[in-house]
């Protein structure tokens, strides 16, 4: 056993050296990229305070307990994980200074970076990493039921700490089934193992440290001087919670908010005097999701007819002044490496073809259908209204049924009791996370999609160790989804951000975060 371990360690050392250099290169790339756009180093004014507007109250300050995307985008600034995502979508070592993966993707070993400090002054060690991984995966026996478990870590069988030959601490994760994409799920926060007040006063190792939280009002954080990575420029950032986008908009007009990330295209047009408007992607798959088992949607021709009836660019023009990225499959374009861009043209709007398919399927006069939409997402409601008009052209008579979010979750998502629905789905930075819901037995397969070819290919894609083959498999999976018209995919919506003209460095990521460590005041 000991001998085996020694051999393994030796392997780790070799590979980790490679990875470490890799990681560094990526890191540099990221920083230069962030700065090259707006300003050279000498335009950066160190220090300063800003106010960032957000529209949702914090649901939990504990980084392993929150579920709202609106909380995650704030906590991103205070916590670092084993690996961290770059604006390009790469995963670079963070708390881990390097990592190695065994050949079949079942054993991951991380060398823990030395000298990393938590905000409370204690030094981060392997015990903290083991504690955090066990807590998120549920391997600690789940003493706290409100911790949100990462389902991709359900195959984790052990988390062990060890040391490298030169005395550095390591943590080894062993899986019961191969998963070559585990890294994408390891961005979750590493937190101190002996600290119990994460929900009240969170402590992490990120570039900003927590100062205060006032219910439904604000979260304040300040620069963490002992941060191990590139330090933040700003001294203090206040996330101001407003009741909704309209309330935030009035505050933008009044100038009390410096950065606000969820504007509508109309609102953005009115703010150009004092704000730079930056446009990125939300990294969502927005689609008219079709329940593949209800009549008449169980007929592939009907589903294809719906796809042909929809003019996706037309939807974008109507609801977002043309901003956004049209997609043709169940993945968003931000996943450049895996995204199958060819699927965009599979169903170009073709009313004649749609009508032909409908009559082939036995519905020459169309049919009635209900689109269930969660009413708290105005964007999806707007989309539904445009779709109703477009479907009318081919004879499909759609009616919109607005439901509350809680009802949607219960009846549509969990109960699968619906005909069609519009929603935007997000994902972790692993291609399998986006596509896993279409496996016939997946708990997230709320559209009841069932294709055995897809199931087999998906299982082998996740375990695939050859990168080129993996990319190919994922592209093929998307093609299958498109050809089966699993749902009518529409777009990755645009994220319109207002950034005060005094500031620069705002950076978009392929995940939903607001990174304030790159934002700085421009020297006047």
């Amino acid at each position, binding site marked *: 056993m000991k001998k085996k371990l020694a051999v393994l360690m030796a392997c780790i050392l070799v590979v980790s050296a490679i990875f470490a250099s890799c990681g560094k290169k990526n890191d540099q790339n990221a920083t230069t990229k962030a700065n090259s756009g707006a300003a050279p180093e000498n335009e950066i004014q160190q220090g300063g305070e800003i106010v960032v507007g957000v529209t949702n109250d914090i649901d939990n300050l504990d980084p392993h307990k929150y579920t709202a995307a609106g909380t995650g985008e704030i906590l991103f600034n205070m916590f670092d994980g084993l690996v961290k995502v770059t604006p390009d979508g790469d995963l670079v070592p963070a708390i881990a200074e390097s990592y190695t993966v065994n050949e079949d993707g079942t054993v991951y070993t991380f060398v823990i970076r030395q000298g990393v400090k938590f905000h409370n002054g204690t030094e981060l060690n392997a015990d903290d990493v083991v504690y955090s991984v066990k807590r998120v995966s549920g391997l600690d026996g789940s003493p706290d039921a409100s911790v949100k478990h990462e389902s991709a870590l359900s195959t984790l069988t052990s988390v062990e700490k060890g040391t490298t030959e030169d005395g550095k601490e390591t943590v080894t994760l062993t899986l019961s089934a191969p998963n070559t994409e585990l890294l994408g799920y390891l961005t979750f926060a590493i937190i101190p193992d002996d600290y119990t007040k994460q929900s009240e006063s969170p402590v992490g190792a990120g570039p900003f440290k927590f100062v205060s939280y006032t219910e439904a009002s604000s979260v304040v954080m300040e620069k963490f001087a002992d941060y191990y990575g590139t330090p933040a420029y700003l001294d203090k950032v206040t996330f101001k919670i407003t009741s909704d986008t309209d309330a935030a908009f009035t505050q933008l007009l009044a100038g009390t908010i410096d950065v606000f990330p969820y504007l509508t295209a109309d609102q953005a047009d009115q703010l150009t005097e004092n704000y730079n408007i930056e446009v990125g992607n939300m990294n969502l798959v927005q689609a008219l999701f079709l329940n593949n088992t209800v009549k008449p949607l169980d007929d592939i021709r009907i589903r294809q007819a719906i796809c042909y009836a929809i003019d996706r660019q037309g939807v974008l023009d109507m609801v977002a002044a043309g901003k956004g990225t049209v997609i043709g499959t169940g993945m968003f374009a931000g996943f450049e490496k895996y995204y199958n861009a060819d699927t965009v043209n599979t169903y170009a709007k073709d009313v004649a073809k749609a009508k032909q398919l409908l009559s082939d399927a036995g519905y020459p006069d169309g049919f009635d259908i209900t689109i269930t939409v969660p009413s708290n997402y105005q964007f999806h409601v707007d989309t539904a209204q445009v779709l109703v008009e477009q479907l009318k052209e081919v004879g499909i008579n759609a009616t919109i049924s607005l439901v509350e*979010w809680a009802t949607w979750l*219960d009846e549509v998502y969990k109960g699968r009791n619906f005909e069609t629905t519009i929603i935007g789905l997000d994902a972790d930075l692993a291609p399998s996370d986006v596509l896993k819901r279409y496996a016939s037995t997946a708990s997230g397969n709320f559209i009841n999609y069932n294709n055995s070819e897809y199931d087999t290919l998906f299982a082998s894609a996740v375990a695939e160790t050859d990168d080129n083959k993996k990319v190919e498999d994922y592209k093929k999976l998307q093609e299958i989804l498109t050809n089966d018209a699993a749902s009518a995919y529409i777009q990755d919506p645009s994220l319109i951000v207002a950034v005060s003209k005094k500031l620069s460095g705002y950076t978009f990521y392929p995940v939903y975060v607001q990174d304030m460590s790159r934002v700085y005041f421009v020297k006047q």
Partner: protein
Amino acid sequence: MKFYVKKICTLFLTLFLVMFLAFTAFRIIPGNSAQIALGLDASDEDVAALMHERGLDKPFLESFVSYVGGLLHGDAGISMHYDKPVMEVIKGRLPVTLLTAFLAIFLIIIMAFPIGILTSAIKHPAGETVFTLFNQSFMAVPSFFMGIIITLIFGLILKFFSPGGYIPYNEDLRGCMKYLFWPALAIALPKTAMLVRLIRTGIQKELTKDYVRTAKSKGNNMFRILVLHVMKNAMIPVITFFGMMIAEVLAGSIVVEKVFSLPGLGTLLVSEIGARDYPVVQAIMLYIAFTVIIINFIVDLTYKRFDKRVNV
């Protein structure tokens, strides 16, 4: 004595009913708070585990009994959404709603009484028409719309305050009150208009009565008559209205909070209904019911003071 016993019995009965209704309502409407708290991708086992931890999987009657039992010990449960004791969640919000409500009531009193008394002197038909026109318009505008108008005029155009610029009361009470003044005004204006009308018609009616003439002939001046005799009689409908109004002001502040993005109970109530956070919503409902009942109780007592004939 019998009166108090009766009142206290009604108090408990009403609270019990409110509790029971709130409890049942959440059992009937769709939505699972544990699923919402753990998110879209939570496994069924994790959801079940959380439901078990919070006792949500118990049969209806059993969970109701244990909830009521907890309340008697001052324990309102743990918020599903915030994962904190309900009392802690509410504690932070309550002062905002109460401050707004008190400020609104204060504004109503200092505006309605002088205006009511002064305008009761208006007898000219043209003046009467102008008064009615103004009064009716203010009465007709609901407080949330008044809030929007105030934000537009005083916030965006005149820049007297910055919309949404709430300052927490525990940081700077004066700054907070300065901000709360506007939502309080939005609640106060429609209510003031109603009260002015009541005071005014009450006084005008009383002034035509015989005892006023008698008092005048005894050499009393108008001010003395108003304060000592007329007001006392004109007050009875005003007090009834006042009792109802306080409950409405509380309810009104719940709606107006949303307009001014105040972190009060109202905003909390709305968001927690959305999150199916039963324990928090039940606690807020109970609190509102409790306040309304207590205020009605006080109103009944005040009647007695003003008019000894009233037998409550």
